[in-house]
């Protein structure tokens, strides 16, 4: 472990200066080093969360204290092993994590892994929808802003990007709900699907949990329409939050590449401005966007918690808030640790993709 920590500054750009001497095998080595970097990251977060959650006392008192007589409570604490030294509990917890056991919730006694598999699909669906909205809004607008740099359309678009950032997702969600479902009645107010669709979904064999995928597979187009109409507002609310970031990124990077010599060369050969932006300047500008997309995963997960609460979208974030309100800290700890692992792994994948696209990252 110590040697692992010594290698990196945890920034992909400078991870492998040693491999510079060797011409071949850079990618393989990079992937291995980058993979082992996940371990210290997750380890630190697990440790941090574990000790923070223990500072406030044992989880059973937190969840059920006051509702149970003291002797029953003490018995339960003893049974669960929460009266032993914290360090022993900590190492036991680490051991459980390695075997994939994230503990069971206190309030409804479900394994945390099961909570993830039940509600994770909904969060994944929301994130994908939102990402589509974010890219569909962010990239074209970013290109337009870059092409009309310092003109009024650029100013308007940049202001729009800042506005996207400045509006909390629960407020944009509230406004969308108010406008499009309460006043105009175009979309449903909350939820992932109407009760009837949810029932049909639950009868499906081997569901993926992602509703539109399940509806497509079973060829149920009424359900698909229902799912789609429920998905619009949450996706827009969460998508706009990240759309602003993408817009700015595309704009700055395209402006950067537009200043390059080869663009000037293209222009002198009579390539149209539109083609210059969409063909020549756009692709090299994509690389930093992919890298930053990895960082956006964390922001999106945070936003997903708020979006799910706003729209009663029953995903991981919604469930997390339920457990928080029930003071079920084992469940909270489990979900938080799981999310930490998801974020770390996604960042790893994104870094690998960036390295595949741009060989410079590896060296």
């Amino acid at each position, binding site marked *: 472990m110590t040697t692992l920590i*010594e290698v990196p*500054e945890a920034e992909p750009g400078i991870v492998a200066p040693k491999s510079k001497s060797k011409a071949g095998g850079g990618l393989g080595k990079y992937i291995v080093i980058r993979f082992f970097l996940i371990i210290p990251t997750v380890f*630190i977060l697990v440790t941090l969360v574990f000790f923070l959650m223990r500072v406030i006392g044992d989880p059973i008192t937190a969840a059920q204290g006051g509702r149970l007589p003291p002797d029953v409570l003490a018995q339960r604490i003893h049974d669960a092993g929460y009266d032993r030294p914290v360090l022993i509990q900590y190492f036991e917890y680490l051991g459980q994590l390695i075997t994939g056991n994230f503990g069971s919730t206190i309030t409804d006694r479900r394994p945390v892994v099961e909570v993830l598999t039940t509600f994770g699909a909904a969060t994944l669906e929301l994130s994908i929808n939102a990402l589509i909205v974010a890219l569909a809004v962010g990239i074209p607008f970013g290109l337009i802003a870059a092409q009309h740099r310092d003109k009024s359309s650029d100013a308007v678009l940049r202001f729009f990007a800042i506005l996207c950032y400045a509006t909390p997702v629960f407020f944009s969600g509230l406004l969308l709900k108010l406008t499009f479902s309460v006043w105009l009645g175009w979309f449903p107010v909350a939820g992932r699907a109407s009760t009837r669709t949810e029932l049909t979904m639950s009868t499906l064999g081997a569901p993926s949990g992602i509703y539109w995928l399940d509806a497509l597979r079973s060829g149920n187009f009424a359900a698909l329409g229902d799912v789609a109409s429920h998905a619009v507002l949450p996706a827009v609310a969460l998508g706009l939050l990240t759309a602003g970031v993408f817009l700015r990124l595309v704009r700055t990077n395209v402006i950067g590449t537009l200043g390059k010599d080869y663009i000037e060369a293209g222009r002198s050969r009579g390539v149209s401005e539109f083609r210059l932006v969409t063909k020549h300047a756009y692709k090299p500008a994509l690389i930093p966007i992919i890298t930053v997309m990895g960082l956006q995963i964390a922001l999106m997960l945070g936003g997903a918690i708020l979006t799910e609460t706003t729209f009663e979208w029953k995903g991981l974030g919604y469930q997390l808030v339920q457990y928080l309100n029930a003071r079920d800290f084992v469940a909270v700890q489990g979900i938080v640790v799981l999310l930490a692992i998801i974020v770390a792994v996604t960042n790893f994948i994104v870094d690998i993709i960036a390295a595949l696209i741009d060989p410079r990252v590896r060296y």
Partner: protein
Amino acid sequence: MSTPSLTAPKQPLFFRLPVVSHLRKSVGLQRGMLVVGVVLSGLFLLTSIFAPLLAPYGYSQLSDASGSFPTQQAPGAKHLLGTTVGGYDVLSRVLWGSQTAVTVIIVSVAMSLFLGVALGLLSGYFGGWLDRILVVVADAIYAFPTLLLAIVISIVISRGQSSFWGGIFSCAFSITVVFVPQYFRVIRAETIRLKAEPFVESAKVLGASSLRIIGRHIFKNATRTLPLMFTLNASEAILTLAGLGFLGFGIEPTSAAEWGFDLNKALADTSSGIWWTGVFPGIAIVLTVLGLTLVGESINDLNDPRIRGRKRAGATKTPATPTASEAGKP
């Protein structure tokens, strides 16, 4: 920052202050953005200072001489922005809310500035195992969803709800934990860069102690980006505070007014078409964050000579490369 030419006389202190100097060298659209930002932020600050005078009622006031306030009343003469489901006056809570927001910003930014700068200077200057550990820890925290971390910290500190100062500190502290890695990274990188500069070398040769080198030679040079980070983090602090409040981990309505909490309560109202309880606190958040972000953005642009617009007519369009601070910002 303000043209340290050898011959130019030093300008008075006022003109060298961060925002003022930026305002003087800005032009056109960039000046417009900065002015709007400064005006919005100024309004926000003034509102928070004069909230007790501006607000018609107290933030937790439920009745006056003529009896109890009606609940969920539409905006009217007596309650300009209506009342909430709990019978609070919306306008008063929006105005008082600015005070809570300012307090949280000041406490959290002060704490994270102090911790982040100190750790960054030490880690960057001395290096070694302390540096490695701090970098790995900071990176781990940095990659984690800020809101989740803030939730965990606020549970630890206040178990969810609390009094005014308890709530303020739990919010501020959760925001601090999230921000320290950011300050740490920036200051550390600057420190490492400055450590190799000739003036640090010569100070060492002259026998200056490490403390003096860090405190005098590196600190002053490494902290030039702080005004920018301050404004951006202030806006993020407001969003985190509102997010915590919205999830029910904020400050109790009887101990202070908080916009996120009010939005949470307003969520149930929307389905019956009651808009005033949610729209006004929401607008307050947006305007405040907008103002602070505009100031930060403009400072960022103006600090970069490649992006900054020039005063002369026929300014050359200099090709801009994406700056690190702009590209990596969420």
